[in-house]
């Protein structure tokens, strides 16, 4: 089972992305906790792309999301036409720092990387492509 969606680069698109993911989760019969993880992953991907990919404004951005359900796992293909940016190559935020000194950035990417089991990045055709695999937990 698969589904795809095109988005503009404005935050107002987020509810549409969430709705799209919820429908997909419903059709696949994902348990509540996996649905929540999927929504978190997609939100972090989308807000991250807007934040890092378009230093001159993301309004004209063309973002594509494709979801594929496979036995026991979900594949997430996410692409944007922002400047080259590999979220997988970014160092983790220093979470061992005292709360007051913790950097605010990088948390979303850290959560994203922690929630997926496989991840790959490539730059082709002027676009950033991320392919992420999440192995579904049996229940929850």
């Amino acid at each position: 089972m698969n589904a795809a969606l095109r988005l503009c680069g404005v935050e107002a698109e987020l509810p549409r992305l969430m709705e799209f993911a919820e429908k997909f989760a419903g059709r696949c019969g994902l348990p509540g906790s996996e649905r929540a993880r999927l929504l978190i992953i997609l939100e972090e991907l989308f807000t991250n792309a807007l934040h890092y990919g378009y230093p001159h404004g993301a309004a004209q951005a063309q973002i594509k999301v494709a979801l594929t359900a496979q036995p026991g796992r979900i594949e997430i293909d996410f692409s944007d036409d922002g400047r080259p940016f590999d979220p997988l190559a970014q160092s983790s935020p220093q979470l061992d720092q005292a709360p007051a000194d913790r950097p605010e950035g990088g948390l979303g990417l850290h959560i994203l990387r922690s929630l997926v089991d496989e991840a790959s990045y490539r730059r082709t055709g002027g676009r950033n492509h991320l392919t992420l695999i999440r192995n579904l937990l049996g229940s929850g």
Partner: protein
Amino acid sequence: MEIGEARQDGMLVLRPVGRIDNLTSAAFQDRLLVAARAGAADVVVDFTAVEYISSAGLRALMAASKLKPKERRIGVAALNSIVAEIFAISRFSEVIPVFESVAAAVAAGASAAHQLAEAAPMRVHFWGSRGSLPAPLGAAAVRGKVRDALLAARKRELATAEAIDAFIDRELPFTLRGTFGGNTACVEIAAGGDEYVLCDLGTGVREFGRKLVAEYGSDRKHCFNVFLSHLHWDHVMGFPFFPPAYIQGNLIRIHGCHRSLRDALRRQHQEPGFPVDFDTLGATIEFVELVPGRTHQVAGLSVLPIQQFHGGDSYGYRFSRGDKSIVYSTDCEHKYSVLDESYPFVHFYRNADLLIFDAMYSLADTVSVKEDWGHSSNIVAVELAQAAQVKRLVLFHHEPAYDDRMIEAVYGETLRFEEISRDGHKVEVIAAFDGLDLTV
């Protein structure tokens, strides 16, 4: 986003519903900060109805816990498995305290607040320390002080403002650089809680009320707990001039052992004595009758009243918290033949950290002209404080006919008497003045 709110045992509980994500995190952060800043309570966010939280929500929590007032705490409780997983990934339990349940947060908060409160010092501020009638400083007294100060400054190098300040503070005696003040009885006990505690409503309460309104304006609402020693004029006359009594939303609880508390307070608001009727005052005013010999819990303090010897009766109060005690005992004419535990006040004052004591007269006055006037002397004060092993004794309720020099002379006499009559235990003697601030 929908955020419910409830109070539970002194904590503010926020209950956001749904997702704390990029779309809702700003509103969530604002709500959290308003709660932490506006109220006087710690805040716990109940996550029971939260589906999940994204990094945007975590940033809101982090920002709120950085921007909140230092004395307020924010915690989270009842995380579902997804929220707990996100917290674990982000090591967020190091940023913000996480509790099993709201009940656990409340219990932890209460015990931390309790420990903090027990350990924190109490502050005692004297807004009025004169007995019987206000005694403003007159022109002749001011002239006398100026003259004596100038005499003391002769042949001194006082070329700069700093040198003059140093000279005033270090070399001039209290009676020249200051005054014991003329406001009648009003003592504030600041025990660290949100509610105010006041002993008596003499004219000193006006200063207290003015300072409060100047500091917080009339928007901030307060709760006052007043303990009245008795209803004689000088102990209640400040109330009609207490600005917070006129502000709607304030709560004033007047505690005392007299049956006629309410009548006495109402009466001084009646024509032709005063133009504003008691019933038109904006604040909510409650009267609480206390029973002598029974301990009452008010504003985090244990309060024990005792009946005293005074025309129409008066009552002393022992305020305790943890191992600290403050006794407010004014307007009592002590009479005893033997000073031991058989005299109830030795027991009542026992080991008090601070004893605020009516020592209106010098001994010479007490045994001659002012016997049976319902007050005690500086000598009786020391004897009782020694017998009860009191740490600090504050001479209070100064005679209005005494000028600063006379009070200073009585104080000096008291210090000498304490020294020569001391039997091992030293009592520190202090003379109250309007503005005196003590820490217990």
